[in-house]
Each structure stands twice: as structure tokens, then as C-alpha cells.
């Protein structure tokens, strides 16, 4: 199983080189990877069915509980088959869709990266690798949305998507850390048996909140839904794969995965029902007002995700069954519609639904695929969608007192989705073919066969739902509810209330379709409400925050060294002053100080004079030289107190500093009034305060009883362990050698920085 996950990553690394070298005409062979993965996982079905979940574990960082634990149960199986199956078709489709694109190799690399991460995500049992793969899917999605990186809209959408899903990803980490803290376990499978303990824990609410934020952002739930329509800037294969069939379902997967652990609690159910219901209705209605095919599909995808969250929120066995089936139903018809949209866009150059009609005459096989998908989407028998919709109504009807409300919401959503599906899947193909599209021709089979396969499957599973029952749906549901479920998937249930509801849905939906004509005007009406949409609010917030950050940075990072110094010293003085004022009893024992000798007095006098010159000289050179004198005087003091090492270093450093200053100042005007009196007084005051505080601090330190253990250890062992008599040096190169290692690295980085700053600057001025 590790190979299955890793292979995609390795493939992603290799493919840019292979495709770049080959320059081959067809890149169809790339689809062999997802195809073989699909085959591999298909062969696991019977194993899972017979022996239950497959568990594999590889140690990675066992000390902090991060291991590559993989777990293949019914739910994972459903997802891995979806990922590798749809993946295969999308890989094939891409070969024709982006044929000859200069960055096709990169595109495949991102796509494989995504596929591998997604497989890893749904197979992860370890909570930390779950997070890791989750983030990887966000990142690969970012690359794919921004694939057309010369378009500003593309880049912006990619950033929005990354910001929203990355934001959610952090909450996932928080939720996982919380769960790990509560349970002391690092695998999801180990948490299931102690679900009751988790639900009773005081942190349960927080874990739930974080988990929901992660799932809602990823699965585009209200109010985080707006990144998904933006993500439609990506090439169509990406929209098909990531933003309808797989990645956006990661949030749903997460919720489903944690249903046995965190579910069946009023907070869990209430929140999910509310958010899911709002999302499904809101997005379904929104979809009706769009005229861009991909926009319609994006909103109907959000709505479908809402339905899934809603169903998981209901939490009954029927609802979870409906969710498992609907995941598949939706993936089949929505991927088909996206692929069809891609073909229309590719061949006609537009996705504007008001412009398109009569394409059946030129794109017949595509039209058939679209029709099959639209029928399944509408839930018209004998499609798979009909089975799915029946299950949804069955689930809502079984909800007791609130059954009528839930059923009503479900009908409303389904009606709107049906209309959206018809607009996207049927409308472009019926009616009269405009003159300008007469020359449109059928693309290569690599493009229209994948949607046909998916569309046909959507019909086949409707006619024979038993094909999926034992192998896929039953294990999936059983991993959600924990026991073996008892149900039977079938197309025909006889005449009952559910059938009546289906008829009502189909009837009113079809009626609405004929009444509602998508147009610019309608879109305009809808966009008037944009001002209150979460997108506007969150974007506004982001912009505001950016402005605040900019202002804040401008204020402190103003580029003037003197203000940096003032800020740092001022802040330190405040902190120190406060601490000395409230925290410490000032006690300075003058008896501890040694007497001032004649030499020291002389040195201090020199220092005083030098300081005077530094401050009051009119010449920069004099000021710098005086500063050097102060430094040298310090060296003498170090010497008096027997620190020759320190004195030597200080001496060299001071020499070099003075030289540096001179080098910099050499070209500046010689005489100048450096600063006016007010500035001098300000600076002087600050220096005096800071100096005084540091002196007090130094004197205070002398009162503290210092533990001499370290000093004694170094002194004793310098020769025994380090074979050196100079303790300072032995500390530097042996005892604390690692510190020195890092320090010289930092030094080197600083030098490179200086070099880069000055040289690059020179280059740019040279160019001018």
C-alpha cells in the first residue's frame, strides 16, 4: 500500500524530465499509473469484503507518534477507487485537452502529486499524516488552479483557494492535536473504541469546532464556499478532478471518517445539518443565475457537497447510506458534465450558456454523455441518480418531527440542481445550431470517451445497483456505522411516498427549466446581492488586515537605523525599568566592588573625553575615531580584569569597525551639523536612561548568588576532556562547538547578505 501512495510522488518528480526528454506526440501512457492503481485497489475489494479492513504500518518518527499507518476499509476503498478511476479518465482526457501545451509535463506532475496526496489522505490512519496529506492536496490544488500563471485572475483565485483551504488545514492540525491529547492515541482506528470517552471530554467542543472549520473550508461549505467558483479558473481537467470529484470531497471524507468517533452528539448533528442545509439550498439557487457553464457546475457542486454534509449530519443509517451512494452518484455525473464543458469550451471557445445551442449536430457523442449525466443528475429513472435521490428522501423522511422541513429543503435543492443540470447538460445541445459553430468538429476520442464511460456507468449502476452493493456500498456504510448494515439497493421500490416526491421533483424541475431562461439580466440581478456575500466580507477583511499590517510595518520598519535603535532601546528601557521598579528590591552592595586604581581612573578619564568628542564633534571622522578610542579603553579594562582573550578580540573588532566606518564615511561630506540640539537631547536622554538601567542591572547581578557549577566544570575539565589549557577556547571549539558552528554559519550568511545587497544594487544602477 505504501508503494501505491509513494508511486504518485515519485512519478510527479520524474515526469517533468521524462516528458521533456521524450517530446513524444502522445502522452496517453501517463494514464497507466492511475490505471494500475485503480486495478490494484479493485483487487483489494474482495479482500476487504472477506477479512475486513487492511492495516499496514511503517515507522517514520515513532518517538512523536508520526508513522505511516495506512488503513483500507470500506470508506477508504470507495474514495481510492473514485480517485484512481476518475484519475485515469482525467489523465487520458488531459493528453488531448492540453496536447502540445508547453507545460504539459508540469501539469502531469502536479496532477500526480495531487493524486498521490489524495490517496494518502484517504488511506491515512495516523492523524498527523492525515494532516500532512491534507495540506499536500491544498498545495497541489494551488499549483493547478494557478496553472495559467500569466493570467492575474488565475493567480488570484489560486491564492484565495490556498488561503481558505490552508487556513482550514491549520485547524485540522489543531483538531488532531486536540484528539491526540484527549486519547493519547495517534491512529484513527484506535480512537473508535473510545468514542464515548472523547465525547465526554471537556475539549470535545473545541475539537469539533476545529474539525468543522477544516472540513467546511475544504469542502466549500457556507460561508467558505466562494473559493470554489474561483478555482474554476483552472483548466477543465483540474475542475473535474479536484474541484468536483475528489479534493472537495476531502472535507466530506473527514466528517465521514470521524462520524463513528465524534458523531451522534447534538453539537455534531445540529451544526452539520444547519451548515449543510444552508449550503445546499443557497448554492443550488445560486447555480440558477449563472451563465458560465463552469460557474453553474461549480455552484451545483457546492450544493451537492452541502447535501453530503447535511446527510452526514442527519447521522442515521439511512442517511449515511444515502451519503455513501450520493458520493458516487455525484462523482459520476458531475465529472461527466465537467468533461463535456471542457470539450465545448475547447471546440467552440465559449462557455457562455446563452450563446450555445444545437451542438448535438456536431458533437453527438458528447451530447449523449451530457444527456446521460443530466438525467442521472435529475434523478430520472432508471439512472443511478434516481437511486441516490430515493435514498436521500428516505433519509429525510425518517427524521421524526422535523422530517417535513428536511424533506422540503431536499426537494428545493434537488429541483434547483435538476434545472442547473439541464442547463449545463442539455441546453447547449438542443435547438438550432448557430452559423458560427457549423465548423465545430468532434475532438479526439481521448476527450469524448471518458465522459461517455462515466455517463454510461451512471446509467448502468442505476439499472443494476446490485453491482456495487456488496463490494463497495456495504463496506463503506459499515465503516461509518460500525456494524454490518442491512439494506438492499434497488431501483424500484413500488408506489410509495418517496416515488411521489421524486415525481414532484422531476415535474417541477422540468417546469422551472422551461420557465427560466439564463441570461445576463438574471445574472445582473443576482450580483446585486454580492455586497452581502461572505466573499465580499472576507475579502474586505483581508484587504483591511493587509492595510493594517502595511501601516504597522511602515511605522516600525521605516528604514532609518536611528529609529530602529530608538525603538529597541526605548522598549527595553521601559521593560527593564518596569521590572526594576516593581519586581526587584534595589540593593547595591558597594562593599563588593573593588577599589578604583590609578590606571583605571586614567582609562576612565580617556573614555570620558572620547565620549565627549564622539557626541560633540562636527566631523564624522573625529566622531568615529573617538568611538574607537572608547572601544580600546574597554580593551584595557578587560586586560586589567584578566580577560586577555576578550581584550584581544575586542581590540581587533574595534579596529575593523573603525576601518569600516571610515570606508563608509570616506565619500560623505567632511563637515556637517550632524543633528540638531533637540535630537541630540532626545538621543542623549535615551542613552543615559538605558545606560543607567544596564548599570543598575549589572550591579544587581552581583548580588545574586551565582551557581559556579558550570564555571567549575569547564575549568576542571578543559584539560582533561578538551586537552586545552585556554578554557575560553576549549569552550568555543569543543564544549560549545556546536554553537560556534552555527555562529560562523550565521556570519557567512550575513556576509552573503551584504555582498548581495551592495552588488545587486550596483547591477541595477548599472543597467540604468
Amino acid at each position: 500500500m505504501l508503494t501505491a501512495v509513494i508511486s504518485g510522488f515519485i512519478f510527479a518528480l520524474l515526469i517533468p524530465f521524462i516528458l521533456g526528454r521524450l517530446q513524444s506526440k502522445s502522452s496517453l501512457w501517463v494514464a497507466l499509473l492511475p490505471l494500475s492503481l485503480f486495478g490494484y485497489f479493485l483487487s483489494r475489494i474482495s479482500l476487504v469484503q472477506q477479512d475486513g479492513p487492511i492495516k499496514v504500518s511503517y515507522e517514520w518518527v515513532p518517538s512523536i507518534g508520526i508513522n505511516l499507518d495506512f488503513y483500507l476499509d470500506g470508506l477508504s476503498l470507495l474514495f481510492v477507487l473514485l480517485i484512481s478511476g476518475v484519475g485515469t479518465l482525467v489523465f487520458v482526457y488531459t493528453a488531448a485537452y492540453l496536447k502540445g501545451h508547453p507545460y504539459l509535463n508540469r501539469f502531469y506532475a502536479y496532477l500526480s502529486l495531487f493524486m498521490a496526496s489524495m490517496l494518502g489522505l484517504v488511506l491515512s490512519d495516523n492523524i498527523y499524516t492525515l494532516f500532512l496529506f491534507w495540506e499536500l492536496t491544498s498545495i497541489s490544488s494551488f499549483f493547478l488552479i494557478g496553472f495559467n500563471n500569466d493570467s492575474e485572475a488565475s493567480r488570484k483565485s489560486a491564492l484565495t483557494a490556498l488561503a481558505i483551504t490552508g487556513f482550514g488545514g491549520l485547524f485540522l492540525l489543531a483538531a488532531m492535536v486536540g484528539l491526540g491529547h484527549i486519547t493519547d492515541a495517534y491512529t484513527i482506528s484506535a480512537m473508535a473504541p473510545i468514542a464515548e470517552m472523547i465525547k465526554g471530554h471537556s475539549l470535545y467542543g473545541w475539537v469539533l469546532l476545529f474539525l468543522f472549520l477544516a472540513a467546511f473550508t475544504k469542502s466549500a461549505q457556507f460561508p467558505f464556499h466562494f473559493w470554489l467558483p474561483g478555482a474554476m479558473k483552472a483548466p477543465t481537467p483540474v475542475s473535474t478532478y479536484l474541484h468536483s470529484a475528489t479534493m472537495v470531497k476531502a472535507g466530506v471524507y473527514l466528517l465521514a471518517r470521524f462520524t463513528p468517533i465524534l458523531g451522534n452528539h447534538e453539537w455534531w448533528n445540529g451544526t452539520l445539518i444547519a451548515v449543510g442545509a444552508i449550503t445546499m439550498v443557497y448554492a443550488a439557487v445560486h447555480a440558477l443565475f449563472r451563465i458560465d457553464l463552469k460557474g453553474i457546475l461549480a455552484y451545483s457542486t457546492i450544493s451537492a457537497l452541502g447535501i453530503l454534509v447535511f446527510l452526514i449530519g442527519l447521522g442515521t443509517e439511512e442517511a449515511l447510506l444515502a451519503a455513501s451512494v450520493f458520493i458516487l452518484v455525484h462523482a459520476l455525473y458531475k465529472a461527466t458534465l465537467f468533461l463535456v464543458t471542457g470539450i465545448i469550451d475547447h471546440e467552440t471557445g465559449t462557455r457562455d450558456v446563452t450563446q450555445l445551442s444545437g451542438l448535438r449536430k456536431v458533437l453527438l457523442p458528447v451530447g449523449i454523455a451530457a444527456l446521460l449525466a443530466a438525467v442521472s443528475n435529475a434523478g430520472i429513472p432508471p439512472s443511478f441518480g434516481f437511486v441516490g435521490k430515493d435514498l436521500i428522501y428516505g433519509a429525510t423522511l425518517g427524521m421524526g418531527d422535523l422530517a417535513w422541513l428536511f424533506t422540503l429543503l431536499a426537494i428545493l435543492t434537488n429541483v434547483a440542481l435538476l434545472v442547473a443540470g439541464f442547463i449545463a447538460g442539455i441546453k447547449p445541445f438542443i435547438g438550432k445550431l448557430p452559423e458560427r459553430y457549423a465548423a465545430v468538429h468532434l475532438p479526439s476520442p481521448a476527450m469524448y470517451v471518458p465522459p461517455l464511460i462515466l455517463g454510461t456507468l451512471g446509467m448502468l449502476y442505476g439499472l443494476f445497483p446490485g453491482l456495487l452493493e456488496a463490494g463497495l456500498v456495504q463496506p463503506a456504510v459499515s465503516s461509518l456505522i460500525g456494524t454490518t448494515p442491512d439494506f438492499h439497493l434497488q431501483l424500484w421500490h413500488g408506489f410509495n411516498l418517496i416515488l411521489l416526491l421524486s415525481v414532484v421533483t422531476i415535474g417541477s424541475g422540468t417546469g422551472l427549466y422551461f420557465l427560466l431562461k439564463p441570461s445576463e439580466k438574471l445574472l445582473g440581478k443576482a450580483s446585486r446581492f454580492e455586497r452581502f456575500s461572505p466573499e465580499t466580507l472576507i475579502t474586505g477583511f483581508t484587504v483591511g488586515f493587509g492595510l493594517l499590517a502595511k501601516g504597522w510595518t511602515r511605522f516600525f520598519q521605516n528604514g532609518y537605523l536611528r529609529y530602529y535603535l530608538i525603538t529597541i532601546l526605548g522598549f527595553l528601557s521601559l521593560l527593564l525599568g518596569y521590572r526594576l521598579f516593581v519586581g526587584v528590591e534595589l540593593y547595591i552592595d558597594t562593599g563588593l566592588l573593588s577599589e578604583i586604581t590609578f590606571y583605571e581612573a586614567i582609562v576612565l578619564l580617556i573614555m570620558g573625553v572620547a565620549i565627549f568628542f564622539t557626541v560633540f564633534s562636527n566631523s564624522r571622522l573625529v566622531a568615529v575615531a573617538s568611538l574607537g578610542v572608547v572601544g580600546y579603553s574597554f580593551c584595557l579594562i578587560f586586560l586589567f580584569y584578566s580577560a586577555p582573550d576578550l581584550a584581544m578580540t575586542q581590540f581587533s573588532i574595534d579596529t575593523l569597525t573603525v576601518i569600516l566606518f571610515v570606508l563608509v564615511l570616506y565619500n560623505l561630506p567632511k563637515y556637517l551639523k550632524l543633528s540638531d540640539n533637540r535630537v541630540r537631547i532626545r538621543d542623549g536622554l535615551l542613552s543615559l536612561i538605558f545606560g543607567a538601567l544596564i548599570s543598575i542591572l549589572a550591579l544587581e547581578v552581583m548580588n545574586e548568588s551565582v551557581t559556579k557549577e558550570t564555571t567549575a566544570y569547564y575549568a576542571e575539565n578543559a584539560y582533561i576532556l578538551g586537552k586545552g589549557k585556554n578554557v575560553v577556547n576549549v569552550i568555543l571549539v569543543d564544549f560549545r562547538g556546536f554553537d560556534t558552528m552555527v555562529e560562523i554559519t550565521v556570519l557567512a550568511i550575513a556576509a552573503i547578505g551584504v555582498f548581495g545587497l551592495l552588488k545587486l544594487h550596483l547591477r541595477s544602477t548599472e543597467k540604468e
Partner: protein
Amino acid sequence: MKTIIFKTASVFLLPLLLLFSVFILLRGHYLPGGGFVGGLMASTAFVIHSFANGVERTKNIVKFHPGFLMPVGLALALLAGSLPLFLGETFMTGLWMDQPVPVIGSVGTALFFDTGVYLVVIGVTLTIIFTISEGL
């Protein structure tokens, strides 16, 4: 600054100071000194030379850009640190030769490490100073 005396003196001072800096580096383990101070002194030697003769002349003496000393020094220090790893000891364990080498004294990994520090310091200082003096 470009007086005859200073110029002439700097030509003789450069090798002398360099030799002295190596001396400081080597004695560091027993007496005040070490790679850091040694490196600073060596840089000072070059800086004095460049003051008297111009940066271009000094650069001609060195032949290569002093910046290259940084990676060399870092690599030497890292190598000295990781040498014990090959002998089954932990990173940065001091290893010493049994007998002191004439002139140099006892030789051990710490000495190589210190030499690495010495080279990095020269590289850093000269890179910064040369870059700045060229930039103006």
C-alpha cells in the same frame, strides 16, 4: 594615506601579520588566542595592505575572491565535527593525536575546527569590507 612609508611598510607587514595570526590561531588552545581572533588579525593585515595600495592590488595578491573562504571554512569545521561519527563517537567529540607534532603542538579535531572558524572569519570580514569599499 598613500605615503611611501606606509606603502612600503604594508608590503612587509602583510606576511608578518599573517604569520602572527596563524601563531595566534595555533596557540589558542593553551594561551589567549584562537581562530576567531586569528581570523580578525589576518583580515586586518589585508585591510591595512588595501589601505596603502588600493583594494585592487590586495585582491591581486589573494587571486580568488575572499568569499570562497567561507564555504571552505564551514566545510572544514563541519568535517572536523563529523569526523568522530566515522569512529562511532558522537558529533563533535574531540579526537587527538597521541604525540604532539613539532612546531604546531598537539593536533586534534578541535584544531581543524578552529582553523575552519579562522577561514570563515577572514572570508566574512574581507567580503564585507571589500564589497563596501568597492561599492563607494
